C-alpha cells in the first residue's frame, strides 16, 4: 500500500468506485469480537467471506475475546495502529472520535444510498453533531423475560407491568428452603461493581419518569425520579428477592437454568436457553419492560472506519457488504440481535421467534445508555454512579445522600 503507483491506482479507483469497490487485492484489517465463537462469530465469518468473494480484497481479522475488546481497541488506537475496520458502540464512539480515530461517513453514505437501507433512528446514536461515524449492525434493549411456569404456579396469569407489580411478583416468586436459604430468586437485578449496574438504575429512573441528565446534558442524579429508582432497587435488594453481588453474566445463567423467575434483559437469553435448557424452553416468555416510557439500550455493535486507513474505499465496501440485503437477511439465522437493515427480519423469521416482538417494538425508541452530551465519558461516569448505588444497597446510605455525592463528583469530573 505504500508505493506511489499503488496510491495512484487507488485514487483512480475512488473515482471509479462501484458498489463493491472493483479494484482487487486490497488488504484491510478488521478488529472483530469473538470471531471464532459460534453464533455471531459465524455471521462475521460469513460477512468476511462474502466480502472477499465479491471484491477480491482480503480481510485480515484481528480476533479479540469480548472481554478484551475494549482494551485492545484502546491499545491499538493509542499506539496508532488501529485496524481499518473497527467495531464500536455508542458508549465508546465518543472516546474514539475524541481520539481522532474515526472517519466521517456522511458523503460515502449519501453516495452509496446506504442511508435508506437502515431503519429509522438506526443512525442516531452513531451521529455526532450531524456527522455519522458508523454503520449500526446489532441492537438490543432491555425487556421483561419471565418464566411463565413459575408465574402460573404462583397464581399470576399476566406478567407484571408496573415497578410495584414487579416488586410484588418478585416477592411472591422467591422460594426459600427450611434453613432460610433462597433456592429460587424472584428476579434478577445486577448489583455488582460493573457497568450493567449503571443501566439498572437508569432503567428504574426512566420508570419513575426521569433520567440521569436533562435535555441540555446537565446531570440530574439528585433528582426525584433517580432517587425513587434507587429506592426501588433498595426495596428489591432488602427484600432478599434478587441475588446479591452476583455479576450480570452469572445472573443470566441462573435465570436461564431456572434459578430466577424474572429478569429484565436482552433477547440473547432465548437462544442460550434453547440450547442449554431445552426442556423448559417453552416456559420462557417475553413482554415489554414493566413501565410506561422507553426501555434502555440501542446499538451495541457498529462498524466504523479508521480515520488513518490507507484503503478507505475498500473499507467502505466492507460496510456496504455488511448492510447488503444478502447479509442482513442472513443475520437472524446466526445472531440473537435485532438487525438494523430495513426489512431484514422476514415474516418467517419473526414467526419462528415470537419472543423477539418486545425488542422489535422498542428498538427504535430506546433511551441510550450513555448520557447524551457525555457520550465520550461513559467509562468515567458509570463507576461514579455504581459507587452511589452500592453505597445505598450495601451500606444503607440513604439514596438522597449517595446520589447527591455522585452528582457532585459528576459535576466535578464531567460537566461540559
Amino acid at each position, binding site marked *: 500500500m505504500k508505493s506511489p503507483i499503488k496510491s495512484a491506482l487507488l485514487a483512480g479507483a475512488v473515482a471509479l468506485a462501484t458498489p463493491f469497490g472493483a479494484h482487487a487485492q486490497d488488504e484491510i484489517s478488521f478488529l472483530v469480537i469473538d470471531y471464532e465463537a459460534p453464533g455471531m462469530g459465524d455471521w462475521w465469518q460469513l460477512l468476511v467471506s462474502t466480502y472477499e468473494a465479491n471484491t477480491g480484497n482480503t480481510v485480515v481479522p484481528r480476533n479479540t475475546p469480548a472481554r478484551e475488546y475494549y482494551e485492545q481497541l484502546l491499545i491499538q488506537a493509542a499506539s496508532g495502529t488501529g485496524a481499518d475496520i473497527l467495531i464500536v458502540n455508542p458508549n465508546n464512539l465518543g472516546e474514539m472520535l475524541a481520539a481522532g480515530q474515526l472517519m466521517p461517513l456522511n458523503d460515502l453514505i449519501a453516495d452509496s444510498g446506504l442511508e435508506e437501507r437502515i431503519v429509522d433512528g438506526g443512525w442516531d446514536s452513531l451521529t455526532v453533531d450531524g456527522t455519522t461515524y458508523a454503520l449500526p449492525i446489532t441492537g438490543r434493549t432491555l425487556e421483561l423475560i419471565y418464566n411463565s411456569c413459575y408465574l402460573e404456579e404462583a397464581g399470576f396469569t399476566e406478567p407484571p407491568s408496573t415497578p410495584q407489580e414487579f416488586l410484588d411478583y418478585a416477592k411472591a416468586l422467591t422460594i426459600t428452603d427450611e434453613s432460610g436459604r433462597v433456592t429460587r430468586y424472584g428476579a434478577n437485578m445486577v448489583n455488582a461493581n460493573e457497568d450493567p449496574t449503571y443501566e439498572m438504575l437508569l432503567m428504574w429512573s426512566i420508570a419513575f419518569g426521569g433520567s440521569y441528565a436533562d435535555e441540555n446534558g446537565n446531570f440530574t442524579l439528585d433528582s426525584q425520579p433517580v432517587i425513587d429508582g434507587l429506592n426501588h432497587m433498595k426495596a428489591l435488594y432488602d427484600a432478599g428477592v434478587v441475588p446479591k453481588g452476583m455479576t450480570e*453474566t452469572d445472573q443470566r445463567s441462573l435465570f436461564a437454568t431456572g434459578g430466577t423467575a424474572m429478569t429484565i434483559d436482552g433477547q440473547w437469553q432465548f437462544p442460550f436457553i434453547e440450547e442449554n435448557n431445552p426442556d423448559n424452553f417453552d416456559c420462557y416468555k417475553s413482554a415489554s419492560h414493566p413501565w410506561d416510557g422507553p426501555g434502555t439500550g440501542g446499538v451495541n455493535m457498529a462498524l466504523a472506519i479508521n480515520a488513518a486507513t490507507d484503503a478507505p474505499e475498500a473499507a467502505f465496501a466492507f460496510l456496504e457488504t455488511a448492510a447488503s440485503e444478502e447479509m442482513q437477511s442472513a443475520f437472524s439465522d446466526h445472531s440473537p440481535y435485532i438487525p438494523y437493515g430495513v426489512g431484514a427480519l422476514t415474516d418467517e423469521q419473526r414467526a419462528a421467534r415470537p419472543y423477539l416482538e418486545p425488542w422489535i417494538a422498542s428498538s427504535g425508541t430506546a433511551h441510550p445508555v450513555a448520557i447524551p452530551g457525555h457520550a465520550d465519558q461513559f467509562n468515567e461516569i458509570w463507576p461514579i454512579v455504581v459507587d452511589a448505588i452500592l453505597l445505598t444497597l450495601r451500606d444503607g446510605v440513604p439514596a438522597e445522600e449517595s446520589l447527591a455525592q455522585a452528582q457532585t463528583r459528576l459535576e466535578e469530573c464531567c460537566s461540559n
Partner: protein
Amino acid sequence: MTSPRRRRLDSVAGQVFKAAGIVALGIAVLFPIYWMAVIALTPTGFSRSLTSLVPAEVTLENFVTLFTERPMLRWLWNSIIVAAASSFLSLAFGTSCGYALSRLRFRGAGLVLILVLATQMMPATSIVVPLYILFRDFGLLDTMQGMVLGHVSLVAPLAIWMAKGFFDSIPADLEGAARIDGCTRLSAYWHVALPLAMPGLAAIFIYGFVTSWHDFLFAKTLINSQALWTAATGISSFRGEYFTLHELQMAAALTFALPVVIVFLVMQRRIVSGALSGSVR
C-alpha cells in the same frame, strides 16, 4: 538414651503424623480443583445453582464442545510450542547470567541484579502501549517469535536470581579443580557447575514453562490472528460478553493443566536427583 525400638516407634508415629498432614493439606488445596471438575461435568449454565457437594447430573458434553466447536487442540499446540521454546531459552539465558553473577566478581553486579528485578515491577497496564509500539516497529507483532521473546523476558529475572542462588550454594573449588585440569571457564561451567545445580535447573524449567503457559499479557496484546491464539487466550474467551460459560471454561482449564502436569512429572525426578548430596561436600 532412647532405645532403638523407641526411636523406630517415634519415627512410625512421625510418619503417620506426616501422612495425615499431607492428606489434610492436600484435600484443602485440591478442593477448588475438585470444584472445577464438578462444574466442568455439570451441563452448561447450571453450575451457578449447584446445591450439593457432588454434581446432580454428570455430562461430558463440555469437553466434547471444547474440541468440536472450539479449536482447543490448535490453541494447546500453540501454547506448547511457545512454552517449550521460551522456557528452554530462559533456562539457558538465565542460568548463564546467574552463573556469571555468582562466580565472576565485577563492579555493578548488585545493580544488575536489582535492575533485572525492576523489569518485573511495572504494572502491565503501564507498559502495554509502548510494548505494542515497540513490537510493531520491529515486526514482531503477531508472531510466535515475538511471543517467545516476551515470555523469556518474564521468566529470565527469576531464573537469574534463582540460578545465582543455586550456584552460590555450590562450592567453587570443584570448578577450580577442573580449571587446573585444563578446562576452560565455559567447560567448567558446562561440565561441572551445571550438573551440580540440576535440582534448581529443573525447578527453573518448570517455573519457565508454567509462566509462559499462563501468560496472557503478551498472548492477547501482541497476537491478533486467531491462528496463533494460545490456550490462555482461548480459555479467557469463554468469559463472554453476555454469558460466562463457566462449565466450558472449567473443562478447558482442566485440559489446559495436562501438559503442565506432564512436564512436572518428567522434571520432578530431576529435582530429587539432588546431585549435591553425598560426595560433594
